[in-house]
């Protein structure tokens, strides 16, 4: 295994000289008085001033400190398809240390919008595996759901604790000139939260003065909240549930995160072969014999969970796990079949779900989406391929995308054939001008496109509703290549620390002095 070379380091530059707004929304800057100059937004003033005071060498020193710290701690992910067949390449996630700052008011709206959305998504999944009201009333075409790969027939009629299906959700938000929009909801196993916590830890170590000049809301309690969320989702009647994290194993790209979360929560990290099902109860194999498991935070896709039920060739799963889940003897987070809520072809209907289940107006907008399964949308998509981003509904991680405006005619034609062969398999969206944020590049500070993935924890509140906890901030991913709109780590993206500022007037937040 090898580590990728670090991004090129700037050798000589002065402040923010040569920084361009390029006509997109910039998180830090607005146009200045004189032609071509830039001025920081008020909440960025301190960061701007302090970054200005650091020359190339000082910045580079900090960058190397961060890099070595990540590598020595083994904070890496694995990229597949590289030169070493089968093994993947071990990489550190490039850390971009100009922090992204979200003012409290802005965050408050996002938080409300996300809560509304996650409640609707949970009600939707419960409905789909229950009475299917939303399909009966034709708010969503039944065919779209019932034919979806993410729809798990095995879950029909199964009751999960508290009707909670999506315990951990990572919704991807983007911002353009009109404001924030939800790009997608990740209702299966959203990853990246360990980077959020590690980025913060590194930021505090490498840039203490920068960090201390703001009142940044703490995120370090995430593992506690996650454990509380998982425990709250335990089968009824278990008062001291045993929680485990289920990982595909050391070669999985997010393995570091699995081990990190298990460790931070103080629970066992298990692989499929560590678990065994007897009489529809799940046990782990310990050196002292079998021990019962009540809650599984799984980081394995549905398909690989149980070879008896799904993919029979899977060596990652646990034979019999589905029956233990169906009989209510073990809780699985997120529940099997929850992926039906983040199917890319279902995504356009989330605003309808909010109206249907909550009788509310959606607070957060969706990105306009063409579902190729619909005749009109398919037609439009094929005619406007050069202006659209097309995604496979079953792809994730930025694999298999077509960026129409950047692709060649040949690539577009080839892609059109794929769409025509399987319209249900594709959606299309207009190219969104993601907002940009200053990143340290080989030429000094330059604007690079970013998105935001907040982490939303949902658990039954014991009274038929949900308790929701959202980490303030989340993972800001950066498209480190100039002009690129793809932020996925597998596609050369990096990440940065994200600060949500404390609202001094809110008294339900812990005070910094008290921590």
């Amino acid at each position: 295994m090898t580590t990728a070379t670090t991004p090129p380091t700037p050798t000589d530059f002065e402040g923010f000289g040569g920084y361009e707004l390029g006509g997109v929304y910039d998180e830090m800057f607005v146009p200045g008085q004189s032609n071509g100059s830039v001025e920081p937004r008020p909440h960025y003033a301190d960061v701007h001033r302090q970054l200005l005071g650091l020359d190339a060498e000082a910045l580079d020193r900090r960058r190397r400190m961060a890099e070595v710290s990540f590598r020595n701690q083994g904070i890496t992910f694995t990229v597949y398809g590289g030169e070493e067949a089968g093994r993947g390449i071990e990489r550190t996630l490039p850390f971009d240390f100009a922090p992204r700052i979200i003012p409290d008011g802005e965050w408050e709206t996002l938080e409300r919008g996300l809560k509304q959305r996650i409640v609707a998504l949970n009600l939707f999944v419960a409905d789909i595996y229950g009475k299917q009201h939303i399909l009966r009333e034709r708010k969503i075409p039944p065919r779209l759901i019932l034919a979806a790969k993410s729809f798990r027939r095995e879950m029909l009629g199964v009751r999960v604790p508290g009707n909670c299906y999506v315990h951990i959700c990572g919704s991807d938000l983007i911002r353009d000139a009109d404001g924030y929009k939800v790009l997608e909801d990740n209702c299966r196993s959203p990853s990246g939260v360990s980077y959020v916590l590690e980025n913060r830890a590194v930021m505090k170590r490498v840039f203490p003065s920068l960090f201390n000049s703001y009142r940044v809301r703490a995120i370090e309690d995430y593992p506690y909240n996650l454990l509380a969320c998982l425990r709250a989702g335990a089968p009824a009647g278990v008062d001291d549930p045993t929680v485990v994290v289920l990982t595909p194993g050391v070669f999985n790209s997010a393995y570091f995160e699995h081990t990190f979360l298990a460790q931070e929560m103080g629970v066992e990290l298990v692989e499929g072969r560590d678990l065994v099902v007897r009489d529809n109860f799940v046990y782990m194999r310990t050196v002292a014999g079998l021990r019962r498991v009540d809650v599984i935070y799984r980081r394995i896709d549905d398909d690989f969970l149980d070879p008896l039920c799904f993919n029979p060739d899977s060596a990652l799963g646990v034979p019999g796990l589905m029956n233990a889940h169906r009989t209510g003897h073990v809780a699985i987070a997120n529940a099997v079949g929850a992926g039906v809520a983040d199917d890319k072809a279902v995504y356009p209907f989330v605003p309808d779900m909010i109206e249907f289940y909550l009788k509310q107006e959606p607070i957060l907008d969706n990105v306009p989406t063409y579902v190729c399964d619909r005749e009109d949308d398919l037609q439009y998509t094929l005619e406007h391929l050069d202006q659209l981003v097309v995604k496979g509904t079953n792809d994730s991680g930025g694999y298999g995308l077509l960026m129409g405006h950047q692709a060649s005619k040949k690539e577009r034609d080839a892609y059109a054939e794929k769409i025509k062969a399987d319209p249900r398999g594709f959606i299309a969206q207009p190219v969104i001008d993601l907002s940009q944020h200053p990143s340290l590049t080989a030429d000094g500070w330059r604007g690079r496109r970013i998105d935001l993935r907040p982490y939303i924890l949902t658990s039954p509140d014991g009274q038929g509703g949900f308790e929701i906890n959202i980490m303030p901030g989340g993972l800001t991913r950066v498209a480190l290549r100039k002009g690129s709109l793809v932020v996925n780590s597998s596609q050369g993206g990096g990440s940065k620390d994200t600060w949500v500022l404390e609202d001094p007037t809110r008294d339900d937040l812990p005070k910094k002095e008290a921590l």
Partner: protein
Amino acid sequence: MSLYRTDESPMPATPTAARQTERPLLARVAENIFWTARYVERAEHLARGTLVTTQLASDAGDLDDRLRDQLWHGLLEAFDLVEPAVELGETLGDAVVRFVLTDADNPTSACTCVARARENARAVRGEISLEMWQTLNEFYWSLEGGGRNEGARLILAESAETLLQHLVRSSMHFQGVTDQTLAHNRRWDFALTGRLLERADASCRLLLARVELLAKAGDSLETPLRNIQLMAALRMCGSIEAYRRQHANNLSIEQVVGFLLLRADHPRSIRFAIASARRAVARIHGESGPGLGHLDEAERLLGRMATRLEYADLSEVAHDGGRETLTDVRRCVAQANAALQQRYFAG
């Protein structure tokens, strides 16, 4: 009865007799910790064996090519390795050093052992101390460099001695960190057992190779050369100083074999390793719950060997240069390993 559990139906008790308050230890985790320790110890013995052979070869250099090649073959045989291809312009010694230390395709090279140790540790990094993981991870990257042990090859190109010292010290560093940061419970006992079984086995291998070499040379070997071989045996087992303190200049095969096999208080002696491993296995057995019953097989095997070494008579052990006892210790280690595998790791 309904397929779905209602709130009233009782949960079955955990099948083990004792519901432990202590955190459970997964069978796989125990196995990974055991092998992490074994591989690090193996890397250290490979390095020390090579280091001493390098020194021996340079001593023997102006005497006899055949004897020198014998030394290198002895090292390869000790670790059951085939002779590597000698590249143009290389001596056999250079090829062996390269092969034993940095060859990425040799499953028993020191670098491969460190990589394996790290793979095992990575699979349980939440179960060992952060310091252990970081120490081992840094050790690994210092050898791996940009890929295929580039780091180790660069150090080797500078000086073999530096690389060898680096391997030995980093291994000991990791063991010290293990002892000082990991709680001394079952996890540590599995690490300790892995380390000690490997130490006993590798010491037997290295010692047997010396004994065979001396036997082959017979009376033709002059006393100074014989002494050098005996000192090499002590060095390879990290015991030269301890031996000198005990026996001053009395260097005989009986004394050397006796010291390495039977010494009670020397942490590098085979008896010490077997006896400590036995205690560790006994603790694991004791803590893993009374529900399992019977005497533990690994404990029985190690206990019997520990007693044999404890009550052994020097002349009895040394009459054949220790060959019989050393071979028996190796068999005992292999059987104990298999017993642990079956009892604890198979889950």
